């Protein structure tokens, strides 16, 4: 009797933790949440699509967004970039030469001037708009993958 209860309890304990683990893995690397849930073909396609999108974004001189107090929409754009997972660190480093998320508010701040100059270098590139769109889309895709992994883990979707 007690053995049966233990057998029944084990999958329940796993399934309780599964959505959280799947979501974290999905954020850590595109498709990893689906690998964890046994959806390997989908995972491979998602991994390839998001990574190609991200790579095209970086290669096309796209810039990771920075939060600027006077422009509230930059919070959403930065959140979207961060949703791509740790690979977002690469685009930030390539854009600004270091990992930075917030643009200092004061006009005379040398850190702001330095970041703005690096951003202007990107903006001057002909492919900047394409690149930034690719980067933002990669982030949006990964948000959908996180939600999809959650739905699969909770049994709402196959």
């Amino acid at each position, binding site marked *: 009797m007690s053995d049966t209860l233990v057998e029944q309890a084990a999958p329940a304990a796993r399934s309780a933790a599964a959505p959280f683990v799947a979501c974290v893995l999905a954020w850590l690397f595109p498709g990893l949440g689906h690998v964890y849930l046994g959806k390997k073909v989908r995972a491979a*396609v*998602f991994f390839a699509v998001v990574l190609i999108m991200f790579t*095209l974004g970086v290669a096309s001189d796209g810039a990771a967004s920075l939060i600027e107090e006077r422009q509230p929409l930059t919070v959403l754009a930065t959140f979207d970039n961060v949703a791509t997972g740790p690979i977002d660190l690469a685009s930030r480093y390539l854009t600004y030469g270091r990992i930075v998320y917030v643009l200092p508010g004061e006009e005379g701040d040398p850190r702001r001037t330095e970041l703005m100059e690096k951003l202007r270098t990107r903006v001057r590139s002909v492919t900047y708009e*394409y690149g930034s769109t690719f980067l933002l889309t990669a982030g949006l895709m990964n948000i959908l993958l996180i939600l999809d992994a959650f739905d699969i883990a909770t049994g709402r979707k196959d």
Partner: protein
Amino acid sequence: MIRSHFLNLLVFSALVAVFFAFLTQNDGKDRLRVVLILGGSMVVLSLIIAYVMYPFPLR
């Protein structure tokens, strides 16, 4: 990198279409149908919008 606006449109549409095909469908044929409809719609609608916008000045 890719400088052609049209080539960027094709690549972007293809990637988005494949992504949503695998996100929303489980069957191979259904996925192909979504890729063709969604990818094709994105390209054709973009060209129509571009054509409609063409007479308007940039500034």
